[in-house]
């Protein structure tokens, strides 16, 4: 879809909690703000079944409902959300140019808030049976497994929380954990309440997802204590083995990443490229909480406002000096 205009004060890449929080602040202050989202508005929060630790909701709130409220609040002040993808970001003088599926866009400042996506295990069968028995979103696909057996791979917060969600549908769940459970104590206690339906297998590496006639039939793993192969008959597999940052589009941009490909920033949440800021799960050092992401979004918005004020008041050369540009 082509955009009506091509020049903005601020382009935000992503529309998760950090991005929507920043957009709320900037739009409210009449900073012309455009967001790009290639996946779900609300990011991983929108595909999380239930959120119990976001302040202001004493009884908790559905992730989808929370995401929708954040979107509505940002849009209320004029933030525009474009459904599309940013493929490339490059500094061009005092502006930032973005190649997008909606054409080339230019901005005085850019906020990268692209978050992370669920990591693949990388075993045989995983891609072959993608969406046909292998899944990464319990709230999307769990309902297809009413009274069926499932395997959940992973032992962190997402695996435990989504595994518990899947007990609404599945007759039984085998949870395969490569080493030890790494979920929070609260979630581990909650998991224990579902031991009639969820069997946790610690020290169990997942080797292969096997199927026949276009359907998953079993998962083969190795018990690290005995070295023995173990088979788990199943109708489907849900994978939650960690997160990978969405930073591929920054290759060649000059934005500095850490060894995990998370974006480095200074105390103003600005990257090493003046005018390009970062907030939320994609930032090196982020704490991967919705509450901290929204906080970072608000902080980034204030820093961006200051940057834009200097951008407007001063010449290109002065802005470059102020922000350490060579």
């Amino acid at each position, binding site marked *: *879809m082509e955009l009506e205009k091509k020049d903005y004060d601020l382009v935000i890449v992503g529309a998760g909690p950090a991005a929507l929080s920043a957009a709320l602040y900037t739009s409210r202050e009449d900073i012309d703000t455009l967001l790009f989202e*290639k*996946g*779900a*508005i*609300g990011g991983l929060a*929108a*595909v999380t*079944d239930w959120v119990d630790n976001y302040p202001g909701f004493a009884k908790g709130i*559905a*992730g*989808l409902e929370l*995401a*929708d409220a954040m979107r509505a609040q940002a849009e209320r002040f004029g933030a525009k959300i474009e*459904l*599309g*993808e940013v493929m490339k970001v490059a500094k061009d003088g005092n502006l930032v140019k973005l190649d997008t*599926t909606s054409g080339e866009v230019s901005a005085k400042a850019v906020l990268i808030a692209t978050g992370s996506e669920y990591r693949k295990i990388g075993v045989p069968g995983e891609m072959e049976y993608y*969406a*046909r*028995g292998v*899944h990464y*979103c319990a*709230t*999307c*696909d*769990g*309902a*297809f*497994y*009413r009274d069926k057996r499932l395997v959940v791979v992973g032992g962190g917060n997402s695996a435990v929380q989504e595994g518990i969600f899947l007990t609404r549908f599945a007759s039984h769940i085998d949870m395969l954990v490569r080493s030890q459970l790494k979920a929070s104590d609260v979630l581990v206690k909650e998991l224990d309440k579902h031991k009639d339906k969820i069997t946790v297998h610690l020290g169990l590496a997942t080797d292969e997802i096997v199927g026949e006639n*276009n*359907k998953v039939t079993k998962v083969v793993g190795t018990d690290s204590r005995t070295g023995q192969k173990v088979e788990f008959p199943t109708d*489907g597999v849900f994978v939650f083995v960690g997160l990978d940052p969405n930073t591929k589009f920054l290759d060649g941009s000059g934005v500095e990443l850490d060894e995990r490909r998370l974006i480095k920033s200074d105390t103003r949440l600005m990257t090493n490229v003046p005018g390009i800021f970062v907030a939320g799960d994609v930032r090196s050092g982020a704490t991967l909480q919705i509450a901290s992401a929204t906080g970072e979004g608000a902080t980034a918005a204030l820093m961006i406002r200051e940057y834009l004020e200097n951008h407007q008041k001063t010449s290109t050369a002065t802005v470059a000096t102020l922000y350490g540009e060579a």
Partner: protein
Amino acid sequence: MAKDITIFTTNTCSYCGMVKRFLDMKGQSYQVVNLDEHPERNQEAYELSGGALTVPITVITKEDDSKRVVVGYNLGQLAPALA
């Protein structure tokens, strides 16, 4: 042009909302089949999608009654399927 668009959804599927939003932006009307409310239509969705166990599944029926089926929220497939 599409003669009919049907989206198979569930109550908790955030990507289903994204497909609806995209179609709204394109000014396209559509019908929704919520599989949580109509589990008897699971098999229909399964067969239309060629064996996918996921939502959204968007079925676009063209003027000549040919069908395009888009599994998941995939703008790269949805946009040309509407053309």
